């Protein structure tokens, strides 16, 4: 089932690309959700030949949490904050896409130098998971709106997750659950924080928070 796992990873790469180029926040929420679900589906597809209860339970949990619950929480925040579009980001969208291509090329280079050649994993999994981490970090740095920074955090987490699943195979159940719980709480807290920022200041640009005085 390596082909299916490969396809999941390439689809994740597509979501990265659109996330880099879109200003629409609802689309962003949906894409982040889709990417999370794809990460869960990757876990399943990569181990589909010997499915264990552990793998089944974990990928189902991830699909439900990242694919359904997180988008729900974020969409609700978005609705309350009454925001539709990201205002001018620090890095314009076309430039973001071009930088994304540079990041993709460098993650291919990095992954070619990692000593993981002996493992039977889909060839695109490692470079694209590294690219996903880069994209997440980039979104946190290059966007103004608090919600887009939450996207960045989630994309980063998806990248780390697929990277871990690709090179380590199975991690202890407790570790995975712990990470998932952390992300869950983080999304919840960030959702609330974004809502409060936008209610206090009628916008959610984080750069303007730095001029606050008491």
């Amino acid at each position: 089932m390596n082909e299916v796992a490969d396809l999941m990873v390439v689809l994740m790469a597509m979501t990265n690309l659109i996330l880099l180029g879109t200003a629409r926040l609802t689309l962003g929420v949906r894409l982040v959700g889709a990417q999370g679900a794809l990460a869960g589906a990757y876990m399943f597809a990569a181990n589909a030949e010997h499915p264990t209860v552990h793998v089944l339970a974990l990928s189902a949990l991830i699909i439900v949490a990242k694919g359904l619950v997180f988008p729900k929480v974020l969409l609700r925040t978005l609705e309350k904050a009454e925001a539709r579009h990201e205002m001018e980001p620090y890095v314009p969208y076309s430039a973001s896409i071009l930088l994304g291509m540079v990041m993709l090329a460098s993650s291919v280079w990095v992954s070619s130098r990692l000593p993981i050649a002996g493992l039977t994993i889909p060839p695109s999994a490692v470079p694209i998971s590294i690219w996903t981490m880069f994209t997440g970090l980039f979104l946190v740095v290059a966007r103004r709106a608090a919600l887009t920074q939450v996207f960045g955090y989630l994309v980063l987490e998806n990248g780390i997750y697929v990277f871990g699943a690709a090179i380590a195979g199975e991690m202890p159940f407790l570790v995975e659950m712990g990470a998932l719980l952390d992300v869950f709480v983080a999304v919840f807290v960030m959702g609330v924080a974004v809502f409060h920022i936008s209610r206090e200041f009628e916008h959610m640009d984080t750069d303007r928070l730095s001029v606050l005085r008491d």
Partner: protein
Amino acid sequence: MTMYEYSCLPVVFGLTLAPFFLGIINRTKAKVAGRQGQPLLQAYFDLWKLLHKGAVYSRTTTGIFILGPVVGLAAIVAVLGLTPFAGCPPLFSFIGDLILFAGLLGVMRFATMIAALDTGSSFEGMGASREAWFSSLAEPVLWLSFAVLARLTGQFSLGAIQSEIGSALWAASAPELALTALSLFAVFLAENARIPVDDPNTHLELTMIHEVMVLDHSGPDFAFIQYAAALKHWVLASLLAGVIAPVHTGHAWIDITAALLTMAGIAVATGLVESVMARLRLTRVPQLLVGAGALGVMAFIVDIMR
């Protein structure tokens, strides 16, 4: 290769069916909007009507203005001779003919733009400037798609590339081919001035690109331009059809039927895109093309990783 007997077929199909392709797009748009729509053969009627009219030339124009449509049509007919269709090899084929393919499209564009500038009208100058801007972004995307296809198939002529793409290649490298098909579709829409980039129905000089450049042409000249535009649709769509539906059964007529159905499918898809999307703001168009280019780069890198 018995298929070489059919190498004049792509040209014959292109020359006869290209206006019909536009008819399908218009009919799809009409159906989605709940209208009855113009006849499927309207483009042919228009060409016939225009060919029987006289041409009007402004006193500011020179010979360049008269040459523009002729050169454009000649260039695109030459491109048609290089385009494979339905597994039939093209009329002319040599190693590296994809460079000539892109170059001749450039010649056609240049002829249209310089004829537009020759009118001295500021609107047409604006249209020419936009065309130059967008096509300079669309051409690298076309190149990238060619590069990916050449790398995947190991061939450097359009005919050989198309005969190498088949179910075996799709099974081996579906993501690359799908990404390339997407970026080729974006090139198809941008080069043919279809909706996310330009609106073929618009009548506002300020917003249009292709239509504004040909405002001053009339009669047979305009017929040439319309026909050349239809052929450009056909040529780029048959490139795309060769990637998305490579049917090589060995029976020429089955292959041709499949290819014609694919072309009709592309026309319907174009009509649907035009029905559900609005034209992008001018400043957003480069983003679309950069995105299409990024898809090409991704296809290339995914292929390198294997």
